[in-house]
């Protein structure tokens, strides 16, 4: 573990460790990005979707005549029409099925029922309100508990023989060993908490522009996609289109956060419409459509237990989950585990046994279960263990930092096999927590807390020491529809020494155009400004599984390093030829080969030119290569976050007065971009802890269908963060890097909640739990000792 890494390249070359400015920002800050809705094609039509106003109901009839007679309307598409092409249903990424346009029943408010295609978007929207659907309303199921009650109406009666609302049942770990450990425990601490439904709500909503050429059958589909290659293959498999005729173009993406991983009904219907009409068809969601129908996240009802010794050792953990899946089980995750990677819930702690059970229920809510800035349910897992650990320290009368230090996996135990089967690659949890305590002045805040707040408010200090699991994945355990979770990089060095790097991943704002250019700069000494990074167009990039779950640097970044090293090997042969020396006598320094012990050398640019003008005999011309990288393991970034809050007992409001975040994501390629990712994640974690959720009333109406009810923090509410770093390289990644995009969203929510609970507990209120979001009325209720809803 170290805290600083010194760059090996000059600032002009800008290799690893240089906090260079992001190349892509020139166009973004000038408003010159090109997003899906900016694309206009000749003869383009516009599509609007007719959605169900009710949560559960049988469709008696659909009357499209008034819409069809509206001037400017070209077509009205219903599920019945899709069914004729066998496209009324489509598979989900979790092996379930999902209605494209409803034919039998609607199963959530906002579900797609029909689509109107018109010559302009205003007409399409006007005519959509003229499609009359006659529903026989059915009782709505709005919680998984309600869904599992005996006699509850069966939501998925489309599935033959289905008599209940169970979406899946799953378990992990060793029940017997866990039970034995609990039998020996001095103290058992439990926690019941709900991780509420949230939504990634990217700045740009989802959309598609499908352009099927009626003469050639070639389909160019512009798509807000985090995984264009995987989407191409799924389009081929689902729609039966020949894959060579499908070109997916993912243009500039205005944020994804997991929301743009699934295939949505709108994409399919726009493509079918273009196919049928022979014209380009554009569909772009409104904000409300995005929030009520596309991939939600979380919604886990969790029960956790820790078995403890009286002197503060954790012996074992039990966790059971009831997940609210909505109407279709559509978790966007590539593992063979039904609850994603939730079983990493033993976190940063070393103990012998754990057992996890999970059950998913269908409800009358939108489907999804996307990994919102999360590696497939690790967010819920990390939240549960970090809340439990704080409760354990509280119950034992121990300081929560001391309790963590006592139970952390020790540095010499890595690689560490967790009780549920993960192999953590590297870590030093004690140092990260110590650094965070120093950065925030932990002892100082504890003193101030003991002295009391000058205005009668309550100070609270909360910790979270998370471990993440990112970078899916090794091909043995992770795939999407059978496609293995490798990723790719193709690097071409041009004759003038400039380069283009083509990747299978897809940036949505993460800064790939800079970070991956810096990796090439590091490996070849070509200035990062000379390396163009291309992603998103399936005709022009090698196959990849896309960007989500912090996998781009662990997988795509590794592929880039490996392909650059292969090119360096070839470059060495050319250099030897140019220098009339033996390869064995050549040394490499960033950007240059030289003959050992002399000043005779050639630059990489000179070598590149020679590759096209003067290649050695027997060697193919050109300087390019491609790498498909299959990671041997996931990477396990970690960190410690400490939050200090002050709570106003008069109205239950709380604000963050200090916060320190120490992250260890191994080697940082661009420290500025890494810090930007962390600050964004800390902000999103704060949003979830403080204000953000999607809830439903008893009829299944979505509360949280626009930014008036679904709250996104502004600069005003967002806390100020102190960031720190430790560097524990990943032993198996070619650059020692780990993913970092999600660490802060995963790790921080528990720290905020723990801080508020600490404030209340130290003021004499024995509060076991407050669910997120920790809204003022919930805090007030906890202080008053009264139950409050919602």
């Amino acid at each position, binding site marked *: 573990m170290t805290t600083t890494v010194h760059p090996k390249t000059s600032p002009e070359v800008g290799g690893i460790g240089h906090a260079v400015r992001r190349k892509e920002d020139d166009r973004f800050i000038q408003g010159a990005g090109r997003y899906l809705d900016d694309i206009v094609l000749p003869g383009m039509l516009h599509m609007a979707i007719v959605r169900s106003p009710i949560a559960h109901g049988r469709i008696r009839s659909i009357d499209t005549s008034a819409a069809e007679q509206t001037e400017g309307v070209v077509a009205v598409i219903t599920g019945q029409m899709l069914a004729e092409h066998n496209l009324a249903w489509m598979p989900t990424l979790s092996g379930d099925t999902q209605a494209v346009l409803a034919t039998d029943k609607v199963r959530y408010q906002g579900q797609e029922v029909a689509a109107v295609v018109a010559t302009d978007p205003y007409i399409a929207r006007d005519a959509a*309100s003229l499609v009359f659907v006659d529903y026989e309303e059915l009782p709505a199921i709005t919680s998984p508990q309600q869904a599992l009650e005996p006699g509850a109406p069966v939501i998925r009666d489309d599935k033959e023989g289905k008599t209940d609302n169970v979406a899946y049942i799953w378990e992990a770990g060793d029940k017997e060993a866990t039970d034995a450990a609990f039998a020996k425990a001095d103290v058992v601490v439990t926690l019941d908490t709900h991780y509420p439904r949230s939504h990634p709500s990217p700045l740009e909503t989802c959309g598609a522009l499908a352009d099927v050429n009626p003469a050639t059958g070639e389909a160019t589909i512009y798509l807000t996609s985090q995984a264009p290659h995987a989407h191409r293959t799924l389009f081929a498999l689902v729609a039966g289109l020949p894959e060579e005729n499908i070109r997916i173009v993912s243009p500039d993406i205005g944020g994804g956060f997991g929301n743009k991983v699934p295939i949505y009904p709108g994409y399919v219907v726009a493509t079918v419409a273009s196919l049928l009409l022979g014209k380009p068809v554009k569909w772009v969601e409104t904000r409300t459509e995005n929030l009520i129908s596309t991939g939600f996240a979380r919604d886990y009802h969790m029960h956790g237990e820790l078995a403890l010794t009286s002197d503060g050792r954790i012996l074992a953990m039990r966790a059971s989950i009831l997940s609210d899946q909505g109407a279709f089980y559509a978790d966007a995750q590539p593992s063979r585990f039904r609850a994603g990677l939730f079983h990493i819930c033993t976190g940063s702690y070393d103990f012998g046994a754990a057992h996890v059970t999970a059950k998913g229920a269908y409800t009358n809510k939108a489907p999804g279960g996307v990994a919102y800035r999360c590696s497939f349910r690790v967010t819920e897992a990390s939240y549960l263990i970090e809340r439990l650990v704080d409760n354990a320290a509280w119950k034992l009368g121990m300081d929560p930092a001391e309790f963590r230090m006592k139970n952390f996996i020790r540095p010499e135990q890595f690689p560490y096999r967790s009780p549920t089967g993960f192999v953590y690659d590297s870590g030093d949890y004690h140092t990260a927590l110590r650094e965070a305590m120093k950065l925030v002045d932990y002892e100082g805040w504890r003193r101030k807390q003991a002295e009391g707040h000058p205005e009668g408010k309550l100070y609270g200090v909360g910790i979270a020491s998370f471990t993440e699991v990112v970078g899916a994945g090794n091909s043995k355990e992770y795939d999407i529809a059978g496609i293995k979770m490798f990723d790719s990089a193709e690097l071409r060095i041009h004759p003038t020494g400039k380069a283009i790097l083509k990747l299978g991943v897809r940036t949505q704002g993460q800064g790939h155009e800079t970070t991956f250019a810096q990796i090439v700069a590091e490996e070849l000494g070509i200035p990062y400004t000379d390396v163009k990074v291309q992603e998103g167009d399936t005709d022009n990039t090698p196959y990849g599984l896309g960007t989500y779950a912090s996998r781009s640097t662990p997988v795509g970044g590794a592929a880039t390093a490996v392909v650059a090293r292969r090119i360096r090997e070839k470059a060495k042969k050319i250099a030897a030829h140019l220098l009339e020396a033996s390869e064995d006598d050549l040394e490499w320094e960033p950007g240059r080969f030289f003959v050992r012990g002399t000043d005779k050398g050639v630059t990489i640019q000179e070598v590149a030119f020679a590759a096209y003008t003067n290649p050695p005999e027997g060697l193919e011309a050109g300087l390019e290569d491609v790498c498909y990288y299959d990671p041997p393991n996931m990477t396990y970034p970690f960190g410690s976050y400490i939050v200090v809050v002050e709570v106003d007992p*008069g109205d239950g409001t709380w604000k963050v007065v200090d916060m320190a975040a120490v992250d260890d994501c191994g080697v940082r390629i661009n420290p500025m971009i890494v810090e930007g990712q962390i600050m964004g994640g800390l902000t999103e974690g704060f949003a979830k802890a403080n204000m953000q959720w999607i809830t439903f009333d008893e009829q299944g109406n979505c509360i949280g269908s626009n930014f008036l009810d679904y709250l996104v923090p502004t600069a005003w*509410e967002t806390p100020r963060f102190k960031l720190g770093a430790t560097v524990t390289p990943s032993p198996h990644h070619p650059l020692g890097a780990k993913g970092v995009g999600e660490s802060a969203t995963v790790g921080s929510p528990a720290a905020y909640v723990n801080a508020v609970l600490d404030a209340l507990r130290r003021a004499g209120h024995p509060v076991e739990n407050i669910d997120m979001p920790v809204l*003022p009325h919930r805090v*007030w209720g906890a202080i008053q000792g009264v139950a409050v809803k919602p």
Partner: protein
Amino acid sequence: MYPPRFEYSAPRSLEEALDLLAEVGDEGRVLAGGQSLLPMMKLRLAAPAHLVDINRLPGLGSITDTNGEISIGALVRHADVATDPTVAAHAPLLAAAAPWIADPLVRNRGTLCGSVAHCDPEGDWNSLMLAVGATVVATSREGTRTIPIADFVVDFFTNALRPGEMVTEVRVPKAGPRTGGAYLKLERKIGDYATVGVATHLRLDESGRIAQAGIALTSVAPKNLKVTEAEELLVGNEPSDELFAEAAEVAARTCQPTSDVRGPAEYKRAVVRTYTERGLRRALAEARGEA
């Protein structure tokens, strides 16, 4: 976000605007800042057939000091109220409250008069107007009349304007010596409507007794609620913590909050009590020159 079809006029004179408003009647709406109207149209919650855009009308954009009152024209934006020196000098409560209206983007476009006319019970301005005793000036082809704010705010999204009338200004009494006030707003984030808002306003006589009191509440009734009973309780008395607690109790008892995602009714009632007390204390400190 595509609103339904509508007609749009942009008259150049007040006379022309009033003619248009008379002509289009109930189907028409005045467009000033558009910060409530346009989102409602885009969400298809409102579908006026005709918008009369008053942004080109001369003379409605100023704040003037006239005979003991501050006049705020129909095109004065929230942001102007926050920074105007006349408001700061003579209506400091409004200047202090203005930064709590919505967010900076809304404040740059939205107008005080538009917000007053909108009569949204979750709007902040009408509580402040009720606390300080403002007057609304309404104009139509028939002429101009002044309406006390307590009469202007009729009900849930309902004002006292007659067909063809528009609000052309709002007048606020100048704060004299020994006055103070506060607007305390609980919101989930910047730009959110109030969960609870409490406007308090006090004027002391030379002996230090309360000569005038204003208390009004946001978001806890079908309209912005003037708590007359609490005001009467305060007037003529020596200010004290006990008196303020009693007035706060009356405010908490009088309000009619509903339970929703912002919190249960009992919680909102408790916040009304807390904020009324805190607001009165702050108003008193200001009136005594201690703040």
